[in-house]
């Protein structure tokens, strides 16, 4: 076997210093110290390109979409639909009709719950999720189970924060109606083998919804390669505006699904006797959407695509490796989530300091992290802790910032130990 061409294999490099210039918010001091923003798992900052796309929409061509024959409406509609095309190519979706814009990732999951799963759900049926899911991939299913008498089945996680494919396989029964799984854990950083999980579920004719909220900002995602029936993510974690989410759904499934909200823009014809619903995606986009937000998401997709997701992934992997090395050297620190496959999320607890005290002391140094349960209380229960401190990396973070994080954690240690 000949050696692979290193030029073909090497991920392109990210020029972080240049990237940082695109983010005006990073040029500020917090409590007299340069801002070190390590809360990207909660929400990412926005590059100038996104801010400008939103501003340009409002300044130059804003109008409602899909209805006016006037010029502004046609321009706004074209920009909105162009964003749909960008997202479809970003996910490698076969068709733009498979991209539905929602208010967020949570709404995308709820759409699947109410429109795809609920009509198929009977008492005794099962919904399979993992023990590391975000509340947004737990609570909608619990509500359905409560209503229908279906059962929520949970795949356990190991001490490292991993799930095993055997555990997934053994829990899929002939009563399983959907599998809901996150691709990257917001609380632990674990990268789940979603491709293999889909393969196992499809062998039993069970559809799979992948929650990609933490995955899309961190790695190249190909929904056809994964084989997901549904894939959900939010714009604001992908350096885009808040208030926008995306649901990718296989067109053959979307066509069988009833609308879940009624209103304008989702119908073919309405009379008081009968309403004919539009085809997907319009069927699932009732009412005026977040037009400028969707256009901003399109700009965010352009931005990360130009940088190359492989470069972003390699950069964050380097930051995670470095941070893990520096932080695990600090006495009294325990890292929560030690999966072999992990993305740029570092959760930890300290022997003597509560995560909120850690957060306060780091903030005084300008270091912004998240303290709390990360909307994943079952994960906290699994590890027997009330909360963790979490640093989550983004494409603009640097090795120097990782060193500042570690130095600040040492201050916590000095104060509390």
């Amino acid at each position, binding site marked *: 076997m000949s050696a692979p061409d290193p030029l073909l294999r090497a991920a392109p490099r990210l020029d972080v210093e240049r990237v940082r210039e695109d983010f005006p918010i990073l040029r500020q001091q917090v409590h007299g110290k340069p801002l070190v923003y390590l809360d990207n798992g909660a929400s990412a900052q926005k590059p100038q390109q996104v801010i400008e796309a939103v501003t340009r929409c409002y300044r130059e061509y804003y109008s409602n979409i899909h209805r006016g024959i006037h010029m502004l409406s046609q321009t706004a509609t074209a920009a909105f639909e162009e964003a749909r095309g960008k997202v479809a190519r970003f996910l490698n979706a076969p068709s733009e009709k498979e991209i539905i814009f929602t208010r967020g990732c949570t709404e995308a999951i709820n759409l699947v719950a109410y429109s795809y799963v609920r009509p198929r759900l009977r008492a005794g049926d099962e919904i399979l999720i993992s023990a590391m899911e975000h509340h947004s991939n737990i609570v909608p299913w619990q509500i359905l189970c409560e209503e229908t008498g279906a059962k929520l089945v949970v795949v356990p996680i190991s001490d490292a924060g991993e799930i095993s494919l055997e555990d997934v396989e053994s829990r899929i029964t002939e009563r399983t109606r959907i599998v809901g799984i996150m691709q990257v854990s917001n609380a632990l950083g674990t990268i789940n083998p979603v491709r293999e999980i889909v393969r196992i579920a499809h062998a039993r004719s069970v559809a799979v919804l992948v929650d990609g909220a933490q995955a899309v900002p961190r790695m190249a995602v190909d929904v056809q390669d994964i084989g997901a029936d549904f894939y959900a993510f939010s714009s604001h974690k992908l350096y885009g505006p808040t208030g926008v989410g995306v649901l990718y759904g296989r067109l053959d499934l979307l066509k069988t699904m009833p609308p879940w909200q009624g209103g304008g823009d989702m119908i073919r014809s309405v009379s008081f006797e009968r309403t004919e619903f539009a085809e997907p995606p319009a069927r699932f986009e009732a009412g005026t959407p977040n037009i400028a937000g969707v256009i901003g998401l399109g700009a965010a997709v352009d931005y990360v695509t130009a940088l190359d997701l492989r470069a972003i992934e390699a950069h964050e992997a380097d930051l995670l490796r470095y941070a893990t090395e520096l932080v695990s050297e600090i006495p009294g620190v325990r890292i929560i989530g030690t999966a072999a496959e992990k993305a740029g999320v570092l959760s930890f607890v300290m022997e003597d300091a509560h995560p909120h005290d850690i957060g306060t002391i780091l903030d005084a140094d300008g270091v912004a992290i998240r303290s709390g349960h990360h909307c994943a209380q079952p994960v906290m229960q699994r590890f027997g802790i*009330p*909360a963790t401190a979490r640093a989550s990396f983004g494409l603009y973070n640097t090795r120097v910032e990782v060193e500042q994080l570690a130095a600040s954690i040492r201050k916590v240690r000095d104060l*509390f130990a």
Partner: protein
Amino acid sequence: MNDPAALYQRVVLDHNRAPRNFRVVQPCTHHAEGLNPVCGDRITLYLDVRNARIEDIGFQGDACAIATASASLLTDVLRQRSAAEARALARAFEQQLAGHANEGDGLGPLQPLLRVREYPGRLKCVLLPWRALEAALNGDVAHTVSTETDADAG
């Protein structure tokens, strides 16, 4: 200036490391639980009140340094005080935290806790045991007390 050493003074760190009266009181005439679900802070106060006087007081729970030190100091200053004095002190403490009264007036050992004023996000931590105290003295044990608003929920 935002100096964490001013917030985490020696007294506060000491009460966090070695909380006073960290036990269930027997007999217990009044108790109440304070829980901030977003933080995960949980503090339960136990009181033995006889003839309107706090004969014994203790607490249990798992919380951050600010809430723990606040609970520890609370139990220390309220032992052998009347219920009316306890309520008055709680009121004075809350008013000074809110900046509505002269700082330090009659607070004695509680004074270091007033530094939390500069950390609005942590007010809910320092107040949690005091709200639990109020609920315990009111005999309101049916509901868990919280100092988090719905806006904090996640």
